């Protein structure tokens, strides 16, 4: 025993001991000086904290649903106010330009409201020109908007928004996934934390993970083990840089946005592989190998399926691809040709594999590999992988919505959408409700729901089935689709009236099939709701909404 103890304590050299003593002394003196001040502050704020908790806690617990809905509505209103203001300025600039006989180029040409390209000094100048009551408004707006005219400030706001989004999306997708999983399995899912349907479960889990010990196994390659989560989380955050949420709601509109997003998503695999390898654990290595197999093979059909819209529209710029689909339901690219319709499904399957969702969740197969490449991870590093996974799910669904489902355009016909002829307030309203980020997010959320739904419905498939599905089914299929789309695009350039009829018939047939599925979805939900008494368990019956 003594031997062991002396072994343990003789590791430090004499110099280390001196350093340690000086450090402790500084710490001690710091505590003597600042400690009382800190304690005084804490004594002052403790009643406040307790009071806030006592008053706020029950309030939040009772009104969490209202608070959540209120937050969503206020975000929408904020977006709306922005759209109104900038639409008004657009309008006044256009009016002035028209009276001066000048054609206005730049941000006005293909969408509206679209003043993101203007500097606030220009906006303020325009508000000033109009005069009247707007002169006062412009005076206020000029000072309010002054800091926003600097590129760096705008970038900081944009980065802040992106980081916020990147944090909120995984947290609430995880909560939602657990709720959906519960309902699919006839149970309730998280119900307690926070009050209203366990809405605070995910933030609470996040805090728990932050405080957990960060374990690194003794045999692991420590630097790589520490590095791996960053390889995973940074690319998935980078993908949001080029992902447009609306015509003007994009951090950087890249001309190669699609290739850029594919590239950063490809880098994500490196993180998983390094994590698996550096853990020095056979389950981890198996998980990483499966991940590599799966990703490298499914990237090819995924890329090929993504080529179909690119081939049809002729650009890699995501904003332009969406703008090519304006005009309502039947103009969405998924209904453009039978090849495109099949391509959308092929892309969705491949995207499930690329973000390791069931039935392709072999890299972390809990029932076979403990937790796959995550086996040795704990605490915040573990949660980094999950943040990355859920963020990538959103990005992948966003790509599907942008490329195949009309992005931020509503399914309503073009006459409902924005046009430059409308008054500025109508453009604000229409920009918000008929072609805006809300539609994009709604489509993403629906596709996310489908991903979750598939995960809790289908069993996991074997690795040989995964590879068979890629190499012998999906890959030849997407090759045929690529060829077919090329022929279709080539045929569309001809002026043959028969061909135009064929095209129209196929477009409306496919659109009808799509509409059938989209209407059938709530219909099945309503059917299930009216037959909920046949579900298992009293608890579920009692807690189901409406019962």
């Amino acid at each position: 025993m003594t031997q062991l103890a002396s072994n343990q304590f003789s590791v430090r050299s004499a110099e280390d001991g001196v350093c340690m003593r000086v450090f402790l002394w500084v710490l001690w003196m710091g505590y003597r000086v600042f400690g009382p001040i800190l304690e005084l502050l804490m004594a002052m704020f403790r009643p406040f904290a307790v009071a806030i908790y006592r008053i706020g806690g029950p309030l939040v617990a009772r009104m969490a649903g209202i608070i959540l809905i209120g937050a969503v509505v206020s975000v929408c209103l904020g977006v709306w106010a922005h759209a109104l203001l900038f639409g008004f300025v657009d309008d006044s600039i256009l009016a002035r330009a028209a009276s001066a006989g000048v054609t206005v180029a730049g941000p006005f040409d293909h969408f509206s409201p679209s003043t993101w390209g203007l500097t606030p000094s220009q906006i303020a100048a325009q508000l000033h020109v109009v005069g009247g009551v707007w002169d006062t408004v412009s005076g206020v707006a000029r000072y309010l908007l002054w800091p926003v005219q600097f590129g760096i400030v705008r970038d900081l706001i944009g980065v802040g928004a992106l980081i916020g989004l990147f944090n909120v999306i995984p947290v609430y997708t995880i909560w939602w996934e657990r709720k959906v999983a519960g309902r699919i399995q006839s149970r309730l899912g998280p119900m307690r934390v926070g009050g209203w349907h366990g809405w605070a479960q995910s933030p609470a889990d996040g805090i728990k993970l932050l405080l957990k010990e960060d374990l690194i196994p003794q045999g692991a390659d420590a630097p790589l083990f520490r590095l791996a989560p960053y390889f995973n989380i940074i690319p998935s955050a980078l993908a949001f840089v080029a992902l447009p949420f609306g015509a003007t709601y994009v951090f950087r509109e890249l001309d190669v946005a699609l290739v850029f997003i594919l590239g950063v998503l490809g880098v994500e695999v490196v993180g998983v592989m390094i994590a698996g390898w550096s853990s020095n654990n056979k389950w981890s290595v198996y998980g990483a190998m499966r991940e590599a197999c799966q990703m490298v093979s499914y990237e090819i059909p995924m890329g090929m399926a993504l080529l179909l819209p690119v081939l049809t529209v002729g650009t890699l710029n995501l904003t332009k691809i969406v703008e090519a689909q304006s005009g309502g339901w039947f103009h969405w690219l998924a209904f453009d040709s039978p090849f495109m319709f099949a391509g959308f499904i092929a892309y969705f399957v491949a995207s499930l594999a690329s973000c390791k969702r069931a039935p392709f969740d072999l890299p972390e197969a809990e029932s076979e590999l403990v937790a796959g490449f995550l086996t040795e991870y704990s605490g915040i590093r573990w949660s980094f992988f999950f943040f990355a996974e859920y963020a990538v799910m959103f990005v992948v669904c966003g790509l599907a919505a942008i490329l195949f489902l009309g992005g931020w355009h509503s399914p309503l016909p073009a006459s409902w959408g924005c046009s430059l002829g409308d008054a500025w307030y109508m453009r604000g309203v229409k920009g918000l409700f008929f072609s805006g980020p809300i539609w994009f997010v709604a489509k993403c959320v629906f596709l996310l729901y489908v991903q979750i739904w598939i995960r809790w419905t289908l069993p996991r498939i074997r690795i040989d089935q995964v590879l068979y599905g890629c190499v012998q089914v999906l890959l030849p299929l997407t090759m045929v689709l690529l060829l077919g789309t090329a022929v279709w695009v080539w045929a569309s350039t001809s002026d043959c009236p028969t061909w135009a009829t064929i095209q129209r018939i196929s477009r409306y047939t496919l659109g009808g099939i799509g509409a059938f599925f989209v209407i059938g979805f709530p219909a099945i939900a309503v059917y299930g709701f009216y037959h909920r008494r046949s579900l298992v368990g009293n608890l579920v019956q009692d807690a189901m909404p409406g019962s």
Partner: protein
Amino acid sequence: MRLLALVGGVLLLYSRSAWAAEGAGATTKAVSGGLLETALFYFVAFAAVVSSLGVCVSRDIVRMAVWLFGALGSVAVMYFLLAANFLGAIQLIVYAGGTLILLVFGVMLTSKSPWVKFECPKVEFLLSGVICAILLACLCIVLTEATWAGTPQTVPGASVAAIGKSLLTQYVVPFEIAGVLLMIVMVGAAHLARQED
């Protein structure tokens, strides 16, 4: 290390012209040699050099692969900095996302022990040293002898469409030959990997 990464990220975000050079119509402009971009260039160049050295010095194959990722990634950032967005994204897909994964994957499949170390014989060490010295000398000669164009500018028409058009018209033969070569490699690999009947 974290500080360096933070500085790099901040610089990357602020060098607007590199990101937006070929973006929305209103923001197109020539690459300017601003202070931020210069600083970012030196930062990325430093990262590229350090990670390349890491590739040479490190003896663990997987760590080498990670260093290689650093080198390839900083070259990709350099492409973005030069407003060659397409090239940068392709660099990420092909090298960082493809080649590197295959490298690590190969190590995983073939290694006998958990930590594979490189053992380099002295002869090889000397030989590679001589070759590197010759290469360095050549590069230095080229750098000093060459005449450099004045101010840097964006190449007009270096968009994706222009690249695609030139690949399918002017450079169609090399492009197709590269495709055939890859096909041969694939068939050969499949033949080698096939089980004996």
